[in-house]
């Protein structure tokens, strides 16, 4: 299946877009999403283990990702 991954701040700059579409297996996890992103141009600028949110909650690499989930890469936060 294909899934849209939201990108922000320095990560959006690195990959040159506010979101990218990647192909992942049907029973995928966050780790699969990250592996797919690694294949994209500019992904070399990302850290080894970027934070990921699934449906607006921080996720682990083992968190499952289903069709329709909202997935986002979260750069180091700098609010306040």
């Amino acid at each position, binding site marked *: 299946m294909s899934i849209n991954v*939201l990108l*922000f*701040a*320095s*990560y959006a*700059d*690195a990959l040159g877009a506010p979101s990218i579409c990647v192909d992942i297996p049907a029973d995928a996890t966050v780790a699969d999403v990250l592996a797919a992103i690694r294949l994209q141009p500019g992904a070399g*600028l*990302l*850290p080894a283990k970027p934070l990921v*949110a699934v449906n*607006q*909650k*921080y996720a682990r690499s083992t968190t499952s990702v289903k069709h329709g989930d909202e997935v*986002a890469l*979260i*750069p*180091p*936060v*700098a*609010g*306040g």
Partner: protein
Amino acid sequence: MTAAGRLTRVPIDASALIAEVSAPAHGAIILFLGVVREVNDGRGVTGIEYSAYEAMAAAELQAIASEAATKFASSAVVIEHRVGELALEEASVGIAVAHAHRGEAYAVSRWTIEELKRRVPVWKREQYVDGTQEWVDPSGRPATGMSA
């Protein structure tokens, strides 16, 4: 009990935040403002652009306000984080807390700002006096090695 967290695109109104937490049960109100300052890590700053994963940031801000009001019983907490282009001396975040007693009010205020900095998906790009700009990584590592 008042517990609200939200993003805003307009200047933070200190008096409005104070009024929002004010109630006859409270003896102490603390307003924290994080403001854009002219120097960061030794570099001259002229302004900061704040951006956010807006839906998640708003949800996290609301969650932190609710957690704070529960953790420190009977406190009122309102958090506002601004996004967009900010000039020097403008507030990026405002946190108003109220409690019957000042000790708890200080504790709530401090807990809330530390929690916000730890988990709310907001980013800032500093503009420097030399015309460059850079995403800030508070962990001290370069965000991606990129400097746009």
